[in-house]
């Protein structure tokens, strides 16, 4: 009897401790999630009560060229920016892991851009990428290379975002660096004794050992790309006057969702867009996790 009442007390204390999150989860996450599912089947502009219209929002989406544009812009960016940024972040982390002097100084330089306010860094990059007076084209000019009309012509809009993204790899780099520091040095020593080249140790030791970290960054990258908003908003406004670059060339998915929901007040349609976004991210994440069984190596015990 005494024993079970003690257990009940522990339950209650536990629930009490986690109650802020539990309440917040229901009120700010679960409730809104369910609410938005319902709204996605309605016509709602915040002023009149929601009007049930069945799956019309979803049918409309299929015929909406801007929706397809938003998807293609986002996928275009994801396919190039995520692998490029992962590679750069990993390369920098490997360089920093060579027991170099001034490592903290280099780390600070590479990490700093990633923690600054994205509004300010986007404003800065608007000016860096300015096709006529920006520093990037000045360098390309000095090297005798062609100078693209960054953010001005549609075909140079997404590439501009991709170029900028490399500057923000600091967070991934720090995570990779921590992963690299956990790789036992003895593995490399053993490989060196066996006469393995640097390249071979990279493929057969480094990459497998940090594959869980790579997986983490990859998933974060996919989620982040579908939430890519501030840069798209600030830089889409900077040139050309429209909200999403010339000819909607910078219409990222999250930006389109914002425009539909908060500029046009099409809250029903925006909810449908949100659910499609959720679904896409869920599918991609599941695919990545499923696929990861093939390439992610978990050494030792795992709880």
């Amino acid at each position, binding site marked *: 009897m005494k024993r079970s009442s003690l*257990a009940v007390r*522990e*339950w209650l*204390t*536990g*629930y009490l*401790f*986690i109650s*802020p*999150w539990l309440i*917040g*989860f229901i*009120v700010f*996450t679960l*409730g*809104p*999630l369910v609410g*938005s599912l319902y709204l996605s089947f309605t016509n709602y502009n915040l002023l009149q009560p929601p009007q049930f219209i069945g799956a019309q929002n979803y049918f409309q989406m299929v015929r909406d060229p801007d929706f397809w544009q938003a998807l293609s812009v986002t996928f275009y960016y994801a396919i190039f920016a995520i692998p490029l940024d992962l590679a750069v972040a990993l390369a920098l982390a490997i360089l920093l892991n060579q027991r*170099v002097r001034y490592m903290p100084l280099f780390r600070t*330089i*590479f*990490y*700093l851009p990633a*923690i*600054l*306010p994205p*509004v*300010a860094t986007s*404003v*800065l990059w*608007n*000016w*860096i990428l300015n096709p006529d*007076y920006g520093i990037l084209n*000045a360098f390309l*000019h000095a090297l005798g290379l062609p100078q693209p009309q960054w953010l001005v012509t549609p075909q140079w809009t997404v590439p501009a975002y991709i170029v900028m993204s490399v*500057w923000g790899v600091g*967070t991934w780099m*720090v*995570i990779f660096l*921590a992963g690299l520091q956990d790789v036992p040095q*003895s593995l490399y*020593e*053993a490989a060196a004794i066996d006469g393995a080249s*640097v390249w071979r140790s990279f493929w057969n030791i480094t990459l497998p050992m940090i594959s*869980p970290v790579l997986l*983490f960054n990859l998933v974060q990258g996919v*989620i982040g790309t579908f*939430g890519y908003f501030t840069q798209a908003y600030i830089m889409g*406004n*900077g040139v050309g006057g429209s909200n999403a670059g010339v000819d909607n060339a910078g219409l990222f998915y999250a930006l389109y*969702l*914002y425009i539909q*929901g908060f500029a046009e007040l099409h*809250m029903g349609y925006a*909810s449908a867009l*949100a659910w499609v*976004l*959720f679904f896409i*991210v869920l599918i991609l994440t599941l695919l990545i996790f499923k696929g990861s069984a093939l390439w992610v190596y978990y050494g030792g015990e795992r709880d």
Partner: protein
Amino acid sequence: MTYTQVSVISRDASARARWSTRVRRLITYLLLTGTSICFLIPFAWLVISSLKPNDQIFVFPPTWWPNPVEWNNYAQALTSQPFGRYALNSLFIALVNVVGNLVSNSFVAYGFARFRFPGRRVLFMLLLATMMVPSQVLLVPQFILFHDLGWINTFLPLTVPSFFGSAFYVFLLRQFFMTIPVELEEAARIDGAGPLRIFFSVVLPLIRPALTAVAIFSFQGAWNDFLTPLIYLSDPSKFTLQLGLAQFQGSFHTDWNLIMAASVVVMLPMAIIFFVAQKYFVQGITMTGTKG
């Protein structure tokens, strides 16, 4: 590996190895320095542009050194909009977020780390799953919720949610709680301390570095946030620095020297915090990234 094994390697080979190590170090430093310069050029361009007189902004190829150095750009940029007001608003919102996140997340994380109750595993999985939900999905319904509560154009939607915990911080703090030996708490319990007392006077002091990381990340998150203030704040006297800067760019769209001056000012507080507390940034990021 023992020393006798090493000595088996011939002297010739070890000389070659030393040489190749030296070449490798040289290449490493060259690459690091080169990349560092590439990463620093945007900052140089930012500061230099912010000090240029009007007529030197639109020159191609650009000049490096502003002549004369136009400090006045800063005064002009900062007085053209109430940036002081914006900074106070940002600071207030960020500090409330720090408090909210510290209180709520340490409670929740401790609950998950130390108490056994039915459904704990499921709830914790649910908590982790919320990290996979892009915040954009919740944007519209949360807006409607806060709209119905009459919270639009107040700081409430930007501060209140922080008092209800967030998966990222709960996870981070729980990792730290797990490293504390239970014996400490058991000793305190035998001495007659209740769970709250143990939490505050035994456990919390032990995870101070993790709490610092949470404080810094929530400050950064709230300070850098753009989307939430954009959606909820319409009265210019309530604007945050990020909203103010975005609007500033909109209204001064070709005065790049002034825009850069304003950007420097908006970046500076975060940069300073970063230089002072980099250790905690790295620690916090590392805990969530590699121990997941």
